[in-house]
């Protein structure tokens, strides 16, 4: 791999974005890549917009992904997907959870939650994979594993073998959560290539 792979994970504080970043970077570490991952902590966690960025490849310089260089945008919520959609390369891949979550507070004069959000996302990329991740996670045994479902879908687009992903899940999760997350990963992996109309 000569060039960097740039992954951005966006969502709402509390959706497991930081953990998803840990899992992806652990999988890349197994492969012996140089890795940089950055995220914003602190106040942002209180229900605010959260983003984690991971870059891996032979040699990585900036921990921040330059504008327009995101290869894969993983979004746990559709508005947060749209907020970061312009950061994708024109042929970037979007893997999004089909969830519309209005911001907790709407300051006076702030716009409403956008309508036709999926169409707007598709104007940024032809490669949009939109998955009911929470429903699949629930099927796996815990709705909170939606992040792992999306990682499963992501795994179809990155050159990292399945075993490395399993190792990464084992390295990042409590043993009691592993079974549910393995299943969630599998369910996501099956949906990863399907560009469904939703």
């Amino acid at each position, binding site marked *: 791999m000569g060039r960097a792979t740039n992954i951005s994970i966006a969502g709402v504080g509390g959706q497991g974005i930081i953990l998803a970043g840990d899992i992806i*970077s*652990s999988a890349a570490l197994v492969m012996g890549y*140089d890795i940089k991952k950055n995220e914003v*902590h602190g106040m942002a966690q209180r*229900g605010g917009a959260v983003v984690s960025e991971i870059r891996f490849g032979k040699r990585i310089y900036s921990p921040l992904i330059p504008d327009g260089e995101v290869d894969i945008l993983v979004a746990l919520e559709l*508005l947060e997907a749209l907020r970061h959609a*312009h950061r994708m390369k024109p042929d970037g891949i979007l893997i999004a959870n089909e969830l519309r979550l209005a911001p907790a507070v709407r300051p006076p004069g702030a716009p409403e939650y*956008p309508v036709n959000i999926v169409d707007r996302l598709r104007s940024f990329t032809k490669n949009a994979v939109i998955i009911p991740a929470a429903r699949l996670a629930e099927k796996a045994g815990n709705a909170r594993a939606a992040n792992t479902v999306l990682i499963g879908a992501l795994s179809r687009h990155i050159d990292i073998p399945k075993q490395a992903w399993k190792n990464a899940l084992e390295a990042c999760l409590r043993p009691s959560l592993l079974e549910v997350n393995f299943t969630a990963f599998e369910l996501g992996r099956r949906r990863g290539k399907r560009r469904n109309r939703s």
Partner: protein
Amino acid sequence: MSKKTIDYLVLLSGDEAIAWGAFEAGVRFASAYPGTPSTEILEAIVECPGVHAQWSPNEKVALEVGLGASLAGARTLVSMKHVGLNVASDPLVTASYVGVRGGLVIVTADDPGMFSSQNEQDNRHYAQLAKIPMLEPSDSQEAKDFTAAAFELSEQFDTPVLLRITTRVAHSNTVVELGNRVEYEPSGFVCEPAKTVMVPGHARRRHELVEIRMRELATYAESCSLNRMEMSDLRIGVITSGVSYYYVKEARPRASVLKLGLTYPLPERLIREFAASVEKLYVVEELDPFLESQVRAMGLALAHEPAPPKNGELTPDLVASFLGARRRRTRPPASGLPPRPPVLCPGCGHRALLTALKRLKVFVSGDIGCYTLGVQPPLRTMDTCICMGASIGVAHGVEKATGRSDNIVGVIGDSTFVHSGITPLIDVVYNKGSTTVIILDNETVAMTGHQEHPATGKTANGKTTNRLSLEDVCRGVGVRDVSVVDPYEVKKTQKLIAEALERQEPSVIIARRRCVLLDRGRIRRSYQVEADRCVGCGQCLSHGCPAIVDRTPKGARKKRVEIVGELCAGCGVCAELCPAGAITEVSKSG
């Protein structure tokens, strides 16, 4: 931090790497006060065997105990966020005169862009002010290596060393190769008043030594391996440090770079040599023109206009355009999107208390903590927020200037009160104020991720210790009217505050409700709106609970609301405030 370990290489944040670097360098003592983005340093060190690691009540105390440990010969790490160093600046500047015995490394974690801070001051100026050397790592491997180097430097030159990081170094995870710990036995305290008792006669002599030390350090900087030239395309040369180095490499990988790891004092000869060997010379740095103004003072010509002190953080894109690099055509962001700011959690005791204050329509002198989020609509119950502990002093000042104390309260968190709230409370008592102070006691340092503090009764490693009683502290400084209330009981709390405001003496109300995030697994009930009883007044929407959603159809006069069961934390504040009794409890079984 072992969870991310794969063989010998690990992925560590800059904060964790500093902890590891200190551990490998034989650190014996570590102290800190939590503050983003520095908190994780001490949290990681707590897990290391052979190190005494502690949260101190504030950064000044953390540095003072750290200095004591150093003078007793222990290698010592003291960490804090940038504004914390303001608090610790008093011991810092004199510690420079005193010097060290065991290496003393002080970490300042700056926050360009203010992800979680009230200002974005550039703490590199503190190195200049205190006349101490400063190191700036660019990634986690350097954070670890530079920490070890800082201990060596500290002991070699008899000086505290400032290790300056920024949010993007502190919170970026990069690959680190781990090493083994080397033990350094503390030598014990040696009586040497001329070095450690800073009366004028001693301090004058020590100041001379400080000036000699800085000259020696400047000479050392010329050959120090932390500074390096990477010569490549000689048409462009960039002097840079910290994370900016990687933005330069991203933007212009072929540019020649003088990468400075030791950024104070600067290696003048090396800088001149570098400047002479490139055609166009740039300085790339975040915030103030700290390096640039020194380079210009050497009489060197830069290829760019003098930079004013800058606001905001750098990005690879900003650096690329600054250096005239060719870039991919970018697309504008999607327009018309609602913002998603952080909010107080469902069930947060702060929201309940701020709701009571909103109903009283008083001036709220606020402080640093989650409750500062109360400035946002719809609560809008925060009128000032300056720095740790300022709430009480500001409230007292407003009272003295206006002659009224019946319309102003000071609001401060439990840990913030211990940090810097006790002395202004003494000021209120001493100067016969009658300010009402509300301590929002959520029994933790919530905003930085739930750390312990003296009033939680637990130490940094979770062990039980002497618990500071907030009630006793307030009574002890002379406040007679001290009461405790559960802020979930909004009307009772409101009444208590109203009575305190009327009293012509200082009052402290401790609004005690444990942070809801600490007990998330134990929520057993939630609430629902009974549609047939709801009168649509919208009262329940007025305190901004994320679990209460406005479902009013467009154009309808009567509000329609829904409580999202999964989000509801069961505090019952909305039920208490509902004038129609339309919000009722449901048990969250199974």
